[in-house]
């Protein structure tokens, strides 16, 4: 639901990056977004499309890589992807785990 605000932030970041003359008309913007952020890629893309931007960004499309939720056990150190909503460590059953993936929110790069 907050895709619009985020799309605005993305455009702000991009406008700064394309200032340099070597950057041409941007074709693709690569994003990395964690699953825990509940971003709906379609909404993100259409929000991005509707924000006014300079000519170099006019035809840019978003390419969103979704990052799975990953935890690390604070007790035994083992890591795994969470696919079942259960954040316990499967190796030692400790509940003391830390989320190490799934909260990403990055503009990775641009291609032109």
């Amino acid at each position, binding site marked *: *639901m*907050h895709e619009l*605000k*985020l799309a605005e*932030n*993305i455009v*702000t*970041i991009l406008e700064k*990056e394309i200032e340099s003359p*070597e*950057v*041409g008309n941007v*074709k693709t913007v690569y*994003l990395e977004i964690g699953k*825990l*952020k*509940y971003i709906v890629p379609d909404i993100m893309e259409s929000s991005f499309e509707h924000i006014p931007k300079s000519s170099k960004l006019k035809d840019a499309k978003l390419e969103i890589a979704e990052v799975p*939720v990953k935890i690390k056990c604070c007790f035994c150190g083992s890591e795994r992807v969470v696919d079942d*909503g*259960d*954040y*316990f460590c499967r190796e030692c059953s400790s*509940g*003391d*785990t830390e*989320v190490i993936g799934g*909260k990403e*929110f*990055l*503009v*990775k*790069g*641009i*291609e*032109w």
Partner: protein
Amino acid sequence: MSFKVIKENILKSNDDVAGGIRERLASRSILMIDIVSSPGAGKTSFLENIGPRLKAKGVRFEILAGDCYTSRDAERIDRLGLPVVQINTAGACHIDAQLIGKALDTIDIDSLDLVIVENVGNLVCPACFDLGEDMKIAFLSTAEGHDKPEKYPLLVEESPVAVINKTDLLEHLDFDMEYCVESIRKINPRAKIMKMSCKTGEGIEEFMEWLDEKIKMKKEKAL
């Protein structure tokens, strides 16, 4: 084809401001909590409950009440003579750090122990925005069903406290308390779970004690 690596946090502008707020409050030992729930879970009712108690105890606090368009919640709180600043998000589904910064600018924070944010009713978006708070509180209620922790894990994962409000309605609902508690534990085994009713007062004292301890910890820089 050419490629340029950027690697910039999309929320950087928000997170930088949030970091500034966190420092501003830390240097004055002020605790800030952010209450996040779906619409109508009872955030304002909860503030109406704890506000007068905090006042009676001599805790110096300010409530920042977020709302998309109206000032209804701030008016409810103001009617009880509690200190409140209205934050209007102009339709946005969440409060961001800039709005908190502006609200704090309008009050004298030097004389505060505690800032309480009532976020906009929404379990999704507020979880993504750091406001510079010490902690978010996942404020659930029985009326919305026992599957909400599972459906909105980010909030539960980020909140050291999960409140389950409206326990007085349990007899009328098919809410499975055990399932709800278990699913919170699965996501965040460290979370403190408090069952509450703003109607009967259940759990309010427990929350007050918890809050009192956190205010003290903040003063002793142990938080």
